[in-house]
């Protein structure tokens, strides 16, 4: 019983990481239909930001908290810059965007290698995140690492913040207007170019936050983005493009599935099985878990 609960919670914490990684994409890919392969490198930028801040600020406890907003801005600025330089020229060519941003991702990885060196680096988790919480005591205890709980909390907070931003703020209204009808938004006096850039800033900033979270569960390295980007895109594809609730549900379901399969087989077999499950799922719902049904099919 404890094993099942333990695996489930491991799955939930994998899901929380997946969710943080995919959340920014749900804005850039899901809402704006831009496939940004450099999203992984924005995550990397967030992670290195955390590393640099920890080196310069003594006291890991504070540096991690400082890193959250700084990483958001660093990665967000990178995203806005990318949008301005390249992506805005490519809005009508999604597949070319994919390949172009992959070129950007290559260059950013090399930049990281030149600045920080090829080997992975580590950050030290702050003291208040090193312990465990015992969820079930007794002879067969179930404990959860504080850092995992922190990531879960961070993921929930990010989802809430993004939802509120999209629902309640004027910026959110403008983003939704542009997504739903670009031309109409434009003639209604919305600067679509500015909205695009702001949305890209937000989505890329969320990647920075994900990068901060990743420093708590693994090493920081130039290729860390490549390792997570595919998983993140799969979450969006399965969840349904432009559907935040789909992203949330699918991130956790895939996390738990991965964790349970990993427990009963091996890591590599689990990865393959999850992918098979995804292909099978798309047979059943080719547009993802949640779709907007419209009459314009042509």
């Amino acid at each position, binding site marked *: 019983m404890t094993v099942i609960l333990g695996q489930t919670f491991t799955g939930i914490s994998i899901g929380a990481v997946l969710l943080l990684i995919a959340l920014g994409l749900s804005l850039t890919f899901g809402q704006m239909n831009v496939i940004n392969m450099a999203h992984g490198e924005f995550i990397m930028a967030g992670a290195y930001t955390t590393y640099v801040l920890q080196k310069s600020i003594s006291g890991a406890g504070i540096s991690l908290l400082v890193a959250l907003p700084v990483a958001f801005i660093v990665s967000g600025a990178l995203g806005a810059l990318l949008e301005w330089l390249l992506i805005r020229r490519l809005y009508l060519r999604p597949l070319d965007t994919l390949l172009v941003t992959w070129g950007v991702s290559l260059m950013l990885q090399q930049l990281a290698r030149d600045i920080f060196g090829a080997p992975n680096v580590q950050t030290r988790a702050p003291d208040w995140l090193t312990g465990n919480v015992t969820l079930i005591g007794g002879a067969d205890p179930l404990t959860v690492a504080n850092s995992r709980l922190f990531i879960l909390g961070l993921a929930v907070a990010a989802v809430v913040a993004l939802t509120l931003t999209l629902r309640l703020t004027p910026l959110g209204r403008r983003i939704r207007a542009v997504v739903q009808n670009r031309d109409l938004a434009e003639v209604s006096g919305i600067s679509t170019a500015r909205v695009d850039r702001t949305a890209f800033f937000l989505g890329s900033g969320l990647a920075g936050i994900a990068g901060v979270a990743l420093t708590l569960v693994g090493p920081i390295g130039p290729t860390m983005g490549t390792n997570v980007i595919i998983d993140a895109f799969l979450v969006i594809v399965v969840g349904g493009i432009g559907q935040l609730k789909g992203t949330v549900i699918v991130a956790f379901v895939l996390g738990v599935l991965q964790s349970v399969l990993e427990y009963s087989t091996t890591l590599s077999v689990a990865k393959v099985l999850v992918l098979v499950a995804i292909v099978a799922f798309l047979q059943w719902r080719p547009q993802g878990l949640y779709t907007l049904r419209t009459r314009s099919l*042509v």
Partner: protein
Amino acid sequence: MSEPAGLEIHQLRVSFDGFTAVDGVDLDVRPGDLRFLIGPNGAGKTTLVDAVTGLVKAEGSVRFGGAELLGRSVHRIARSGIGRTFQTATVFEELTVLQNLDIAAGAGRSVWTMLRRRNDVPEPVARALETIGLTKLAGSPAGTLAHGQKQWLEIGMLLVQDVRLLLLDEPVAGMSHDERQATGELLERISAERTVVVIEHDMDFMRSFARSVSVLHAGRLLSEGTVAEVQADPKVQEVYLGHAAAETVTGVAVQEA
């Protein structure tokens, strides 16, 4: 050439997430008819055609030449002899006029034929080129055609498919007066051998060429008959009242396309 076949629609219903776009429509188009489908925006005209061609799920019954269509996949419905065009002309822009027609003519080709080059112009393709008046432009990329020519090419593609029923969605939208006239005459020629259903907003065009008319409103069939009968129907006048089209139905020409 195969015989034209009729279209019998019974209690057709289409809904999207709670909104009912087509609400229990009955429609009987006899073989060889040139039927116009009119109605205000949102009346469900295009959705009805979508349902017949398998693009949207629908309840009820659609029988073509006696066989039920609902539940069949899009390409199977197409193969049973139904062809359609869209509001915006969709031809393969990067292929030539000839290639467009050749592809349309070839749905039943064997694998062996498909894997070889096209060495000559198939006879039905040549005939269609003649009918739609694009013989001289056979070698031009379809993307370079004028708007009206693209619409004719689309109709030509249906002809070489040897469809028995053509469903045309606003074929004269955006055309000049002369192009409209030419298109209307083309449709009259075609409907000598095939059944044609036209969705149209242009009332002048309808009055000149329709053999029969069905009026849809809010997903339901409002009126049906000859042009004169429909124009005289008080229900139709009521629906169009308040629209600019009110006058067009009762006689004054306004082009609303």
